[in-house]
């Protein structure tokens, strides 16, 4: 209005913080490349080595399939047990951590416990359990239960915090006890998301269960580790193909369950 003719008004404020951050990230990336000694020559040698490895992996060797099947079944059992127990433990944890249902003195310590469960990578937790309770599938199950609790209890709590408070208010106003409020006003609002989280966790537990074996916590990972160490690369590729098949089948099954709960 009163601005001088010709002087255009600014529609968007300049974002100096953003520009500085982007410039800093770009500079650091350049520095990191030079520090880690990446060169075109190193890359070319690497490609050659990779080709040699792939050559030794082909064709996959399924001759020792009983060993393979035994490992896979153990991994599957670890994944399913850990998911079932982890999800079961996460339901009450998620409820206790939801700040819209629980007073602070309950929610805050529960959140600390959940964060504690999540603070280590499953492999580190698996190493700890192997040291504590010995080699084998039990350590793997225990490690993945901890990982599951750390992950989905947090997602459960967040889903509960996002529900609409209106049905809660109505059910409370009818004189319902707290447990009935949870069953009738909270669970219906979060159930389909819970199923989604649980399936996601089963999926990641399937993958993690193939890995905890690398540190001696049972499953196909142990077989894979041994094959690597003996340079049986054709058996390695057979194991990898079997793992891929298991994950794919898991994906298809969880798709079915998800649709059933929509």
């Amino acid at each position, binding site marked *: 209005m009163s601005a001088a003719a010709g002087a255009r008004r600014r529609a968007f404020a300049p974002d100096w913080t953003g520009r500085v951050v982007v410039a800093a990230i770009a500079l650091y990336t350049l520095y990191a490349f030079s520090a880690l000694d990446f060169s075109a020559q190193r890359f070319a040698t690497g490609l050659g080595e990779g080709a040699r490895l792939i050559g030794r992996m082909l064709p996959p060797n399924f001759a020792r399939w009983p060993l393979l099947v035994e490992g896979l079944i153990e991994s599957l059992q670890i994944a399913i047990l850990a998911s079932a127990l982890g999800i079961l433990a996460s339901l009450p944890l998620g409820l206790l951590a939801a700040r819209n249902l629980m007073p602070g003195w309950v929610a805050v310590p529960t959140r600390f416990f959940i964060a504690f469960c999540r603070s280590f990578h499953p492999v580190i937790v698996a190493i700890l359990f192997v040291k504590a309770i010995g080699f084998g599938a039990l350590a793997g199950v225990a490690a993945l239960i901890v990982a599951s609790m750390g992950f989905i209890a947090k997602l459960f709590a967040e889903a509960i915090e996002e529900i609409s408070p209106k049905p809660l208010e109505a059910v409370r106003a*009818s*004189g319902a006890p707290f447990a009935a409020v949870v069953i009738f006003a909270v669970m*219906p609002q979060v159930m389909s998301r819970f199923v989604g989280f649980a399936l996601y966790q089963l999926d990641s537990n399937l993958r993690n269960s193939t890995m905890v074996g690398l540190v001696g916590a049972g499953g196909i990972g142990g077989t894979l580790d041994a094959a690597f160490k003996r340079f049986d690369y054709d058996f390695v590729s057979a194991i990898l193909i079997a793992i891929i098949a298991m994950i794919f089948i898991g994906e298809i099954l969880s798709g079915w369950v998800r649709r059933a709960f929509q």
Partner: protein
Amino acid sequence: MSQTDTAPAAATAAAGADRSLTIRHLDKEYVRGKAVLRDINLTIDGRGLTAIIGPSGTGKSTLIRCINRLVEPSGGEIVFMGQDLAKLRGAALRAARRRIGMVFQEYNLVERLSVMENLLCGRLGYVPVWRAWLRRFPQADIDAAFALLDAVGLGDFATRRADALSGGQRQRVGIARALMQQPDLLLADEPTSSLDPKTSVEIMELMARLTGARDIPVVVNIHNVELARRFATRVIGMTGGRVVFDGPPAALEPRHLTEIYGGEDWL
């Protein structure tokens, strides 16, 4: 009605009792020093429909929510059926709440539950939790729910999910749910404000008819002065957290409305 036959003990006990509500010196401030309700004193008879009118933000909702303690009063007494509701806690509060039905502006149904399950929410104060969880409600409650569904004109909707209903249908479910509690008092917080004018009249008519048949006193917050005039036996006008009019609808004159809502241009 058949609904009262299904729980004879509760119904006769309630019919004999005095259902009047006495509010004394009720104060409420959400933020210290900013009073929403100032020294409200009201006695509401144990029958008839009392409409509370007034501009938005004047404390009508707060007043009605203080009665069933969805909002905590800052001071004062709310005496209903021999108890000061403002002092109740825990199990005693829940026992008092189940005698007070409530109808909400945005219906507050559980969207993902069926109409029948929403109605049975009104029985959660009475039924043990494990039975509610397994949906093993007493047959008397289920019969009462079907009778109420017929009464609100949704007899064929029992198994529909609540989110499949229109606004007017949802509010009918809301009224039926409140009546499932066999209440001694029905509170309604702007029950028609989310509805079109024709549906609003139908909902008010339904609420007045069903509560009249059961002789349940009703306290309803309402924006619409015409609806208040048409259905209320008593009108309470509020402005700025105070009661400025209290009388039969016929006594409500333009000068009162000017005092309640301020200005005259809108009349």
